[in-house]
Structures are given as structure tokens and as C-alpha cells.
């Protein structure tokens, strides 16, 4: 481009009009805003959110108290309480504590669980008013956390 053409372009504000044309075009394209409480975002099934413990058809826990999840957890937020049954020589689950205050949702626990018992589900509305609500015991893990519903 010759210097003269450049100068003419500069005087005519060509570069600025180019930008203005782009923004005005965008103005008439639909917005991408998601109006959160009214529209909830689509969450993929792999999303790692609220922890849940699975139960079988009879409502009995799937957990076999193998303690692998507690071992693999980098943040040590899982405590498996278990007792050895003297008859069957197998561990039996007596309690399970999931401390969500420490959890960083890495997903190692669900990955290692041999019975697919513990899972990080796509539920993502995890805010609570009381910090104690984040320490989840077995019933809460099986039932799911109490939902906080945001009104429109």
C-alpha cells in the first residue's frame, strides 16, 4: 500500500469503521447469555459434582468397605469406618464420611471404586449456608444433599 493510500485511509477512519461494522453486526446476532436460575446449563454426564453413594435394588449399599477410595484420595477427605466380621473374615461398613470441604473433585475415588459405589454426579449447585453441611455421612451420600433451589 502506498503511503498516500495509507494516509487517505487514515483520514477517512477506515480502520475504525471496520471495527464499528463488526460490533454493529454482533449487536444483531442473538446473545449467548444463559439466564442462570431461569435456564440451567446443560451439564455433561462426566461432570464431577456432588458425591453420591450407590445402593442396590434392595436399598443396600454397594460399598464393600475396601478403603481404596480413602487411600487414593489426595486430600484425605474420605473416611471409611469398617469392622472385620469374625465369621466371614470380611470387612463390613459401619460408617462413611465424605468431607466435601476438602474435596477438589479430582474424581480419583469414583475411578478406583471397584463396585462403582461412590460417584461424583453432575449436580452442581453445591452452595450451603452452614459449613457443617459439607461433611456428608452415609445417609446423606445415599440420599443426595438437600437441594438448594434458587427461585426465579
Amino acid at each position, binding site marked *: 500500500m502506498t503511503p498516500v493510500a495509507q494516509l487517505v485511509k487514515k483520514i477517512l477512519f477506515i480502520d475504525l469503521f471496520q471495527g*464499528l461494522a463488526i460490533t454493529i453486526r454482533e*449487536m444483531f446476532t442473538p446473545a449467548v447469555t444463559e439466564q442462570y436460575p431461569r435456564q440451567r446449563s446443560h451439564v455433561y454426564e462426566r461432570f464431577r459434582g456432588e458425591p453420591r453413594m450407590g445402593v442396590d435394588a434392595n436399598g443396600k449399599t454397594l460399598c464393600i468397605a475396601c478403603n481404596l477410595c480413602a487411600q487414593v484420595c489426595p486430600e484425605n477427605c474420605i473416611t471409611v469406618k469398617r469392622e472385620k466380621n469374625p465369621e466371614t473374615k470380611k470387612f463390613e461398613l459401619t460408617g462413611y464420611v465424605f468431607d466435601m470441604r476438602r474435596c477438589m473433585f479430582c474424581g480419583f475415588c469414583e475411578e478406583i471404586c471397584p463396585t462403582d459405589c461412590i460417584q461424583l454426579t453432575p449436580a452442581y449447585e453445591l452452595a450451603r449456608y452452614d459449613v457443617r453441611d459439607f461433611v456428608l455421612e452415609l445417609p446423606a451420600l445415599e440420599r443426595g444433599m438437600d437441594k438448594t433451589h434458587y427461585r426465579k
Partner: protein
Amino acid sequence: MLELFKPYTEELVKIVILLALISLAIAYLTWLERKVIGHIQSRLGPMRVGWHGLLQPIADGIKFIIKEDIIPAKADRFGFILAPLLAFIPAFIVFALIPFDGPQAFTVGGKTYSGYVADVDIALLFVMAITSICVLGLIVGGWASNSKYPLLGALRSVAQLVSYEIPMGLSVMGVVLMAGSLSLVRIVQAQERLGWWFFLPQLVGFVIYFICGVAETNRNPFDLPEAEAELVGGYHTEYSGFRFALFFLAEYANMITISAVAATLFLGGWLMPFPSLLAPYLSWVPGIVWFSLKVFAFLFLYLWFRGTFPRYRFDQLMGIMWKILLPVAIANILVTAGVMLYLNR
């Protein structure tokens, strides 16, 4: 006492109406800004308060009023309190001189009223003078805050505003030369007589005026005094609540002022566009509608600019003003004066 005001009843009523309308316009200008910029940025802008956020400005206003009034401990109290008023009051005074409509705008009870509060012979000069008082508010605010970022912001704004007054004043001179008057009403009437609006013969002056106007109101791409990325909030960093709201309102009032003056000087004020073409169909539309449309067009430009451009650096801004706008404005005056001399020979 009341007797004293009696001759000015018309003006007083108009002032009250004007204050209400302008306040409302400013409130909805903030709404418009958020909407326009939102859509430019493929967002929606305010949606939750009222239908499409229409009550948002009112919610914001209430929020500003009920917020805690904070004056920093080390601030200069007098200056800190004075500054927002210094910025706010002149911004509103100017509207007294803006001709929203012609001398025979509307008839009430057999009497014809004009579409402006006052027609002063030196209206343009007065507008320019009053708007520059706003600068005082900014520097006092920045200084009185006793904080570094506001101080830098205030220094920038004073340098910027004072320098941009010069080409701005010069750019309207061409119009004054063509109209032969400083009265805003007579400038519009001159455009009516000429049949052309002044932005065509005065294109250079018009462009310079608008650039300076953007700089005068501290808007993007010249929003250095409040450059958020560098100076956090600029001169009003330490302000909150209602005092901040006053600065904010002053800025938007100034935007409307600049747009209104630009519409009056260059776009024929209350005149209808293409009168020969449209007059048979649209002669019933009051002049104030045309005027508002023109002002709106300018305001939209402001918002559009903000949604598009980056920000100049301080020294570059001054360079543009002294090295480009000022010489061009002076050349524009000389050319206009020469042509006028030739035509009126």
C-alpha cells in the same frame, strides 16, 4: 416574595419539567448503555429488574441513595463533599439554553410557548463556559481524596479537558461564522434558511467537535481519567454511594449536553430532515421528537464507540489534540471565513 417570581412563571415551570425529563433521560441512558453494550458483546444486559431490566436504573438509584456515605479518614472533607456538586450542578445548568424546539413550539390556552427555557445571545459561549466548570469538580475530587490513583486520574482529566476545550471551541467557530450568531436558536434558524444542515459544509468542524466531545465527557476511546484497567476508578476511586452517583450523573448529563449541542449546531436542532420530501406526511411530528432522535443518534454513537475501541494513552491523546485537531480546526476556521467573505462580497 412570590411576586418577584411571577414574571418568570413560564421559565420556572419549564425548568421543573426539564429537570424531571433530563433526570429520567440520564437514568434511562445508563439502562440504554448497558443494553446496547450488552448486545454488542453478545450478552443481554440487565434482564431481571422489570421487563428487560427497565426498572434497573431506579433500583440502582435507590441503591446509591441508601448506601453508606464513606469519607476517607485522611481526605479533605470540604473538597470531598464539594467536588461531586461542582461536577453535577453545571452539567444541569446548561440545559436551560438548549433549544429542544422552535420559538413557537406548542400552544397552551391560546398562548404560544417556545421550546427552550432561555434564548441568550451568547448561548454557545455560555454552554462552553459552564461545561468547563465540571473540570473543577474532577480535580477537586481527585485532590481531596488524598489517594494516588484519584490524583493521577484528576491530573489526567484536567490536562485532557482543558486541552480539548480549545479545538472544541474552535471547531464550532465555523458554524458561528456561517450562522452569524452565537445564539443556539438563531443557529438552527440559519440552518433552516440555508436549507442545509451545517454538518455538510462544516464536516471537518463536525468531526472535530464530536471527537472533542467524546474526550470532554471522558468516554471511550478517551476515557483515560477513569481508565479502569490502569487507575482502578480514576478520580472517583474513593467515592461511593450518592457522591459517586453525582459524578456518574454528571458524566451522563455531559454526554447528553454534548450530543444536544452537536444536534443543534450541526444537525439542525428541531428541524425535520428532508423537509421537501417528508413535510407533507410528517409535519405533525413536533420538533422535539426530531431533536430527541438526533440526540439519541449521537448517544448511540457514544455507546457504539465504547463497545468497539481500545483506549488511547495519555500522551497520545494530547498529541492528537495539539498536533492534529488544533491545526485542522484553525485551518477550518480560516477556510470558512475565506469562503464566507467571498460569498458576502
